């Protein structure tokens, strides 16, 4: 059985356990999920609820304990390590709270690196990195080391790096957790542009305002999904009550 054509990611009864016997922890406890192509999904919950583990399973960073994981119509949960590594490099982009840029490489070189590791020519990698840095608004910072960039700029470099091998799926774990308000808005605007261009996004966060930018929001607790909210299609008419205006008062 193949996954339905519309879904980019299909998760069936997915489980991830750590430890064994008395110390067994069900980090992800039998979840089911379909993510449509081009959808922006947020997974929200308190720390320890299993949301980061779920993200790592979807991106092939961790192996599932049981259940099925389909990516772009292919079942990937049982793949050998080499094949999984290829998926991590080519089909999925990761963005982390702590950026994880290489300190001794420039912004440009950081973005090029995954392209080179995936076997692209240096000319191709350079061109693609330049294009992406331009897209994230950092064309003029290409030659800077991460230490010379602000937190928001570093995260935008990390997003450019995540996109260099043209993944279908971008997985972000607390992408604005280390950023101030303005840098957060910059990153959210960038995600908005990527979403408009058709990229599928999964954002894991404990922050309601980040989660609220998604089309759909899943609440997770103790390894399971406890609620789901469709957020897109809402109106902009009511912006949360502008008390004291609009009526006679």
């Amino acid at each position, binding site marked *: 059985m193949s996954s339905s054509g519309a879904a980019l990611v299909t998760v069936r009864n997915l489980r991830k356990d750590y430890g064994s016997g008395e110390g067994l922890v069900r980090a992800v406890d039998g979840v089911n999920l379909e993510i449509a192509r081009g959808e922006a999904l947020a997974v929200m919950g308190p720390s320890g609820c299993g949301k980061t583990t779920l993200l790592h399973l979807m991106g092939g960073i961790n192996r599932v304990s049981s259940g099925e994981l389909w990516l772009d119509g292919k079942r990937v949960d049982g793949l050998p390590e080499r094949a999984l590594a290829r998926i991590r490099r080519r089909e999925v982009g990761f963005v982390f709270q702590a950026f994880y840029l290489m300190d001794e490489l420039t912004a440009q070189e950081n973005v090029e690196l995954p392209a080179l590791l995936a076997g692209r020519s240096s000319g191709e990698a350079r061109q693609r990195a330049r294009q992406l840095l331009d897209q994230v608004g950092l064309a003029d910072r290409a030659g800077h080391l991460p230490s010379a960039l602000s937190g928001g700029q570093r995260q935008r470099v990390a997003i450019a790096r995540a996109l260099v091998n043209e993944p279908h799926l971008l997985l972000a774990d607390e992408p604005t957790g280390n950023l101030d308000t303005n840098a957060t*808005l910059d990153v959210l605007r960038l995600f908005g542009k990527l979403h408009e261009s058709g990229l599928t996004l999964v954002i894991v966060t404990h922050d309601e305002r980040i*989660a*609220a930018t998604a089309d759909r929001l899943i609440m997770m607790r103790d390894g399971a999904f406890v609620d789901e*909210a469709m957020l897109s299609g809402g109106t902009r008419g009511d912006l949360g009550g502008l008390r004291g*205006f609009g009526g006679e008062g």
Partner: protein
Amino acid sequence: MQQEVLLALLAKEASQGSQLRTRLIQALGPLGEAMNDGQIYVTLGRLERVGLIARHREGGSLSERKLYALTAAGQERVAEWLAEVEWPKPDLAEFHLKLIAAARAGLADPIGIIAAQRRELLRRLRGAQQAALDEDAGSEAGLLLEGIVLRLQADLRWLEACEQSWSERRRTR
């Protein structure tokens, strides 16, 4: 429209109703879209009747353009208003009592009510957040939207606390 807002906008110089409207729309951004001209003129009329503003014809000519200006009483009212520390109250008590009444009468599940309310606030938060993202950095309306976003976020955190508390009560009942 709150009367004092219009009064304060007239404190710098006498203005036409349409100028006040333009200034408000600039300050409110998307939140000002729902505002109609009528509200402003109704409010100006009321302020004139109580003697807080006076209407003049521009340059004393016969032109139809009317300028509104603060009277001495109006200036005094603006100064008072600026010193006030009134703050709009979010009505959390009503929702709180809704949960208690629903549980007591067995009419509805408080957890279900909380979940529905949370979905609604999340949709509003999305609307406000999107509107904030559409504003340029440093815009006046962006700052207002930031306040609305933060307020919704606080309400959502309170709903989270409600959910935990009611789940706990259900377990121990």
